[in-house]
């Protein structure tokens, strides 16, 4: 056997001779001499992690991942699967994009900066608002940031954030954590048939409210029909109106600016990512008046010394590098690469393709609900509304039992109540709708 050169870490390029020469130049005998660590806190144990070749590592991980069973998922509730064109991978995986770097030296990062500027611009178009940042972690954290923004800009004396009664529990919990260090409290307002109960909301509105949050579509997939009313109520009480949405239906539904939204948050990775165990990307757009309160990075256009248009991270005085504890947020590393993917996906769809996709979300959910409704023992949709991608169905059997039986048939659905399941459909599972309906007929 030929003996391998005594390289340690596979991604450290040092040959033995090189290491020796470098130690010599530094003036020490061994690498260990460079560690200035008191003996008392020296670690002399082992992690017990074996070294593996690339091939063995892949085998190890792929064997593990293969223990994820092959089930057909009719799952949504904030995390959606759309077909991602091959172009998105081909371009976003280019090592000039997917590698280690940030744009702290804009002169050598014009490409990514322009791509993020374009992402921001598409979000401006979709929301109708003046400003979009270049990404938040996800919809839940974006909502948290919106609330703290509201606290900073509030013109009223209040401290209450009103959120819909029907709200993904994780989104609410994350929001609660974001406001844990502020004076804000979170309260919910009632809903009627999965839309805001405007009368109840109107009754609740008072000067202690700094922000009203509503979603379109809602967590139950319904189109929220009273957005303009909510916006007007918020406006009447000098509260911010924050609208939560998703980048796909956003192409079809009422433009947030037109219903008075001051801030738009939501999920944007529905374009560009598909299912990724919940990994997403938060969109964040707002009115220009909040510009200096926007969390996260902003890319702006400027000029270079030759007078050519150039892009740069800007308004960094909002960020932690400069303002430290007075920063608008602690967000630093963001989801820039996902924003790039979203932008490429949106651009490859174009306006027609994106609207078509959003329309398919509406018709697909309606058609599936119609078929499910015809099954003995199931009623769908529970809410007499228009739906986007997903809807709740009432099951005469306990929902958990129906879901378990479906799992046995290879289908995954949400259980959202004792007798309620939620089904989400996109073009990714459209060819399996027949099979789902058949399976439901068997178990309902």
């Amino acid at each position: 056997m030929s003996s391998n050169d005594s390289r340690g870490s596979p991604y450290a390029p040092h040959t033995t001779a090189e290491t020796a020469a470098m130690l010599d130049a530094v003036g020490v005998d061994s690498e260990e001499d460079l560690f200035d660590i008191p003996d008392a806190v020296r670690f002399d144990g082992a992690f017990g992690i074996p070294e593996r070749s690339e091939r063995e590592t892949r085998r190890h991980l792929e064997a593990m991942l293969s223990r994820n069973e092959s089930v057909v998922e009719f799952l949504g509730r904030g995390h959606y699967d759309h077909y991602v064109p091959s172009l998105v991978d081909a371009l976003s995986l280019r090592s000039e994009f997917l590698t280690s770097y940030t744009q702290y030296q804009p002169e050598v990062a014009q490409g990514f900066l322009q791509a993020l500027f374009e992402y921001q611009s598409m979000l401006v178009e979709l929301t109708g608002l003046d400003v979009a940042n270049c990404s938040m972690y996800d919809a839940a954290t974006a909502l948290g940031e919106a609330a703290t923004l509201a606290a900073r800009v509030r013109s009223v004396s209040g401290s209450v954030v009103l959120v819909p009664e029907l709200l993904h529990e994780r989104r609410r919990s994350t929001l609660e954590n974001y406001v844990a260090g502020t004076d804000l409290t979170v309260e919910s307002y009632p809903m009627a048939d999965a839309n805001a109960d405007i009368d109840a909301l109107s009754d609740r509105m008072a000067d202690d409210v700094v922000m009203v949050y509503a979603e379109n579509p809602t967590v139950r997939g319904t189109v929220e029909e009273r957005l303009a009313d909510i916006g007007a109520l918020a406006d009447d009480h000098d509260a911010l109106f924050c609208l939560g949405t998703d980048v796909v239906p956003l192409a079809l539904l009422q433009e947030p600016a037109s219903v008075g939204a001051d801030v738009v948050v939501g999920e944007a990775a529905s374009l560009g990512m598909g299912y990724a165990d919940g990994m997403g990307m938060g969109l964040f757009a707002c009115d220009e008046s909040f510009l200096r309160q926007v969390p996260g990075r902003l890319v702006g256009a400027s000029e270079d010394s030759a007078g050519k248009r150039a892009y740069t991270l800007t308004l960094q005085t909002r960020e932690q590098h400069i303002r430290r504890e007075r920063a608008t947020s602690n967000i630093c590393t963001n989801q820039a690469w996902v924003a790039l993917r979203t932008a490429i996906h949106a651009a490859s769809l174009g306006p027609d393709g994106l609207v078509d996709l959003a329309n398919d979300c509406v018709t697909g959910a309606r058609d599936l609900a119609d078929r499910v409704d015809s099954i003995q023992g199931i009623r769908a949709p529970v809410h007499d509304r228009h739906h986007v991608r997903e809807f709740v169905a009432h099951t005469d059997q306990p929902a958990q039992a129906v879901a378990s039986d479906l799992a046995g048939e290879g289908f995954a659905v949400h259980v959202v109540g004792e007798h309620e399941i939620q089904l989400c459909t996109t073009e990714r599972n459209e060819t399996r709708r027949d099979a789902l309906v058949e399976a439901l007929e068997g178990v309902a």
Partner: protein
Amino acid sequence: LYEPLLSEKNSREVEVESDLPDDLTRDSLELPDLSEPELARHYTRLSQMNYGVESGPFPLGSCTMKYNPKFTDDVAAHPKAATHPDRPTAARQGTLELRYQLQDVLGRIGGMDAVTLQPPAGAAGEFTGILVAKAYHESRGDERSEVIVPDSAHGTNFATAAMAGYDVVELPADEDGRVDVEALEAAVSEETAALMLTNPNTLGLFERDIEHIADLVHDAGGLLYYDGANLNALLGRARPGDMGFDVMHYNVHKTFATPHGGGGPGAGPVGVTEDLAEFLPDPHVRKTNGGFEEYTPERSIGTVHGFGGNWQVLVRAYAYIARLGDAGLADASAKAVLNANYLASQIDYDIPFGPFHHEFVASADEDAADVAKRMLDYGVHPPTTKWPEAVPEALMTEPTEVENRRSLDQLATAFDAVAGEDVDTIERAPENTAARRIDQVSAARSPRLSWQALDADSE
């Protein structure tokens, strides 16, 4: 090199029609409208206007800009990794096992008893860690109001403490660049919820008094928080848990080589000691009889992300750790520290503090930001500049282990070439880059953050 915006190439406004009632839909939508070949050329051109770690050395201090092994991308793209978090537990055992294994190896690497993978970035990890510390104190009926942060710390530490509702107590350094223990003694009190520390610190120096520091904080009832930004200096040689830290976050996009991708996504898992484990975010993964499951820790702070964090990043991080193993991780640190020391030995700059580990902070004679711009002209990426402030005109330099001697020499050549140049040349720089020096002031003064704003501007 200049590439028109997508909107300048071809844009189209379409009327939006649908089966929905008109009042529930928008009237029209305008977006770029281009074919695949046009988009391929567009983004290929954009990609060519970036300098990344595969272009050459990228010694951005405190950022640990490692090379990202390609196989980790393939593992992250495995079809079986693309699942919804709400599928039944039995149908996602692969995902849960990988999460469990990563929790476990991170715990071993950091000397921590429990690790959550939920925070989607380092700063999110800090926030999570501080929320956990807060919940811990509150569970003991112990309301505390202050978090102590060394003045040389990452800006996110200050912002995080503030976000969590704490008053920030700034801690000066001693003349050696390390924590001033006397100042710390003065600062700690029964209001101290936590001390946030990076070790080695941002000057690359190991806090030799760490045991004493830990005792001081613990004796006052406070907790010790470890910022994992500099963990790459210590792999296999020291563990935060062994030093007395109670909470820490890991920057997997630094230490464990996952791609930053132009600013993110990253992941910021948080490790804690046994006492704090019950406060970790919901859900956590544990082993069952023959499998894995999620559960809610008894006194969980709740959630800090809509789902389980940045999954694909976590997959890559686990893949990297599983590839290197004990020996590879230890060698990565050794070579990172060797590289920093070798590079420092090759440049004609004053480096006031030492002995340093994986990074050093040199002092420039001219404006450090200008020096950095000029280094671009020599085909390398410059270090982080003007920070930490303990060093005048700081050039905070972290080459990481992935550079070989030749590229370190190339870096040294660039450093030294700029050192010998006159101010005019430096202030004019860069001249050999895709864009020349960019006007930051006007960008901030009259912000144009979208092509709509550009259009409005030119009307």
